[in-house]
């Protein structure tokens, strides 16, 4: 394994990222670009048939259409060898991040509660939307201010968060909601909800807080030349 050293420093960078590549993943390179090129972290692509993730600190399940999203979004991906290992990785308390299709995979795998269903207006939506950061006591969000409104791109057709009333009450009570869609001034209301998600939920974590799933794409809001950098702080929180 190749270790990366920061220029001028002789200590190895602690955090190694792995990005799972399913047939049909299409944001895999975008995530790797951010972790490797923008953050200088060692990063490797993990083929879906590969089950050894033991060298990785953070496993990212990227956006896209894994296995064509046949059957249901994310439904097939959960059975892949890489996912089985990723589930173990998450159960060990290590960082596991699912973005967009990756969030769908995490719910299908039972690592996160609820499900993602068709957008309210049935159209695919690609846009930049305001999100309110609901918790900042986790590594994921420690670089944000509590209640801060950030702008992160979304791009999905099936991103409307759904959970049955009991589950919803439970994740709210546990403080598992990390990001909510909101208006530009931070109000959580239907006007600030692009896809009809219950409680405007855009991203949730598991009880322990080491597994995060979110529909918005933080990797698309990381490079200054593309506009905003609100997403980069999420990755920086893990370093």
């Amino acid at each position, binding site marked *: 394994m190749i270790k*990366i050293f920061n220029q001028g420093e002789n200590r190895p960078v602690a955090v190694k990222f792995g990005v799972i590549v399913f047939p049909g993943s299409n944001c895999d390179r975008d995530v790797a*670009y951010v972790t490797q090129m*923008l953050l200088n972290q060692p990063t490797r692509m993990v083929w879906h048939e590969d089950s050894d993730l033991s060298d990785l600190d953070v496993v990212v399940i990227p956006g896209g259409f894994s*296995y*064509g999203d046949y059957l249901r979004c994310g439904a097939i991906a959960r059975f892949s060898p890489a996912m089985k290992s990723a589930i173990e990785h998450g159960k060990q308390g290590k960082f596991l991040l699912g973005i967009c299709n990756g969030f769908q995979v995490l719910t299908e795998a039972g690592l996160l509660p609820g499900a993602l269903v068709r957008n309210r207006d049935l*159209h*695919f939506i*690609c846009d930049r939307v305001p999100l309110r950061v609901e918790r900042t006591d986790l590594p994921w969000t420690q670089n944000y201010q509590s209640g801060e409104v950030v702008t992160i791109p979304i791009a999905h057709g099936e991103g409307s968060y759904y959970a049955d009333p009991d589950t919803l009450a439970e994740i709210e009570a546990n403080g598992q909601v990390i990001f909510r869609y909101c208006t530009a001034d931070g109000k959580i209301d239907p006007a600030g909800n692009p896809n009809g998600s219950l409680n405007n939920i855009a991203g949730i974590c598991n009880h322990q807080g080491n597994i995060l799933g979110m529909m918005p794409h933080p990797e*698309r809001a990381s490079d200054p*030349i593309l506009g905003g950098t609100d997403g980069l702080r999420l990755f920086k929180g893990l370093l």
Partner: protein
Amino acid sequence: MTAIASAPFSPEEIAAEGLKPEEYEEIVRRLGRHPNKAELGMFGVMWSEHCCYKNSRPLLKQFPTESDRILVGPGENAGVVDLGDGLRLAFKIESHNHPSAVEPFQGAATGVGGILRDIFTMGARPIALLNSLRFGDLADARTRRLFNGVVAGIAHYGNCVGVPTVGGEIYFDPAYSGNPLVNVMALGLMETPDIVKSGAKGIGNPVLYVGSTTGRDGMGGASFASAELSNESIDDRPAVQVGDPFLEKSLIEACLEAFKTGAVVAAQDMGAAGITCSTSEMAARGGVGIELDLDKIPVREIGMVPYEYLLSESQERMLLVACKGQEQELIDIFQRWGLHAVVAGEVIAEPIVRILFQGNVAAEIPATALADNTPIYHRDLLKEPPEYAQQAWAWSEDSLPPCTLEGIELQNQFHPWNDILLTLLATPTIASKRWVYRQYDHQVQNNTVILPGGADAAVIRIRPVEVSSQEVEGLEGLGELGVRNWGEKGKDQEGRGAKEDPSTHSPIHPSTPSPLKGVAATVDCNSRYVYLNPFEGAKMAVAEAARNLSCVGADPVAVTDNLNFGSPEKPIGYWQLAEACRGLAKACREFSTPVTGGNVSLYNETLDADGTPQPIYPTPVVGMVGIIPDLAKICGQGWRSEGDLIYLLGLRLEIRHEQQVDRTATLGGSEYLARVHGLVAGQPPVVDFDLERRVQAACRAGIRQGWIHSAHDCAEGGLAVALAECCLSGELGAEIRLPVKSERSRPSASASHLPSRWDHLLFAEGGARILVSVASSRQEIWESYLNQHLGHDWQKLGQVMNRDSGLKILTANEHPLIQLGLSEMGDRWQNAIEHYLVK
């Protein structure tokens, strides 16, 4: 006795393959015998306009095709241009008009799939999609169904395959009611050291069939695409293919990986005419033959006959010629991606396409007879312009009702200029296309520098990232990311980013001085202009494309064109095609933007219930790409800062006397004339190449100097609409003083004042005009630059104001012509398309 009289086919069977009697005679002459059914079908598709350009080829010859940036010109799957620093861009446009008319969702979706295959077949990773769409009137329910379906189809395929749809254009006009146009352009960045060509080489080399299975779907799509649509066309639904973007995504990855092994000699995608087209073109281009065994082809249904194998247009399939002995290495790659890959034939010395089926020869045709030396029809050009054009040209602005400072009276109703502008902003052709591009993933791949709607052209960052495919054991080609930095092609061999000092790659710590490069792209065609005057209209399509690229700060480099026309067998149809090609050729020379290839879609006519052909407007869509040397120096179309000065570059706004009437700016063919007066008439604006080049160069220079904060060209709707769009896009107001005093041009019958009609000043189109805003601190240096380079061809018009000031257009002596708030304009402009769809 003619051969056709003794043919084993009825005249109807021959006609059903899209072949004319004289073409059948030619087939028999070439073969020295009658063809069998499979062979007849192969000739039918290969000799369709879609595949062999039999009507357009003589006209396409006049296009300029070379420059020092052109690496691959017409004749391959896509053109390739040199971006410098070892970066090479493949790009091409293609139409899927007829399939989309019958089944809009799959028709448009497979249009996207087809053009992407043209790009990655060359060894390029697709990085962007644009599309140029034409529909009928949105008030018509059938048009809304087509529009919804096409947009959803493009979104489905593009989003899933992971290539951003970054730009495009959409026009709505009754001329396209039964025959929408769906033209898709794709751009790709070369990832292989050598450009993968399609000519088969190496006698004995195996021919690999890879990708999806072959079925009966899409039978004879190429012939279908080359015939007129009728009420019965709906029965041709099996001629429309069904796409699977997930398979295509895997095919992209597998192909690029396969090409990098060096074991692929040649590649060709199976698009129109499937196996027939790919085998015969690969053989003909390589000067060799191909023998292919249909029994080896993976199928999705049983009981198919050779005719069906050969004409199937099942999607997501490719044909590769491999180096003998290395075929298994390639097969392994495709199978790892879950794709079929089989050796189905081999390259043979005899220059024929020989198709085997169940141990027998099912077809045997000289490759060149199918793919080269195809029929060419030289047609006679009308001696003089057709009557419809001459009648239109007789129109002049003085036939319009008089207008005043306040507005214009039409059918006994007075319309203030404010209302006219709002009407134009709510015209679907001009209105915001947000409803459309919000459904396209325009950000995937993380390179979209300017979002759709933000500028006159799309801007993509060039970021070569490639996955190192060897060296990492046990990971089957997906190891540490190998990252190649700008222009460091020489480092390929050891180019695994992990071994290099990572900080030199990071834009956040830019220790590398080289600026980030970008590519700009646009698709353009005002087909009303082309209808009114095909030569001038086609010139304008090229000029506008170059102008749009200049407005973001890009140097225009090369063109791909999509010729959408009616039947060339009709004198008017051929006149339109010939004149438009002459115009494209002329303009591409003038702008030094050679044509690297494209697509021809003829017979775009629908037969109405009476059987009368209804031709579309002739629509030569120009796709143009440009280079941005430094992505830090680009600009969008919206105003940026309050207080910035607003300039008009190009033809001056002024009162002209009749003898000075300048045909470069006119209401002829304008959106104002069509929408407000219900007239499609006049001569469209004439392109002044010298003025265009000087204006565009000044705009690019101003952007690169950092003087210009925003740039937007004046197109449909003229100056007033362009000003409104700058306000809406930048969410800032503007105060404009036209350099014309109100008392000098009161309405009068006096012909000498007619060219300065207020509607002409506000809504005339043409004149090479670009609106720019410039920081007031740079006024002096900017104006001295303009004096030096543009002479008199510029004017200072006003100033950017705060949002609440809205848009004010005043005469030189302070009479308001237009005064509108941003929210009022925004409501109309933003919601127009959605408003029609929720009806």
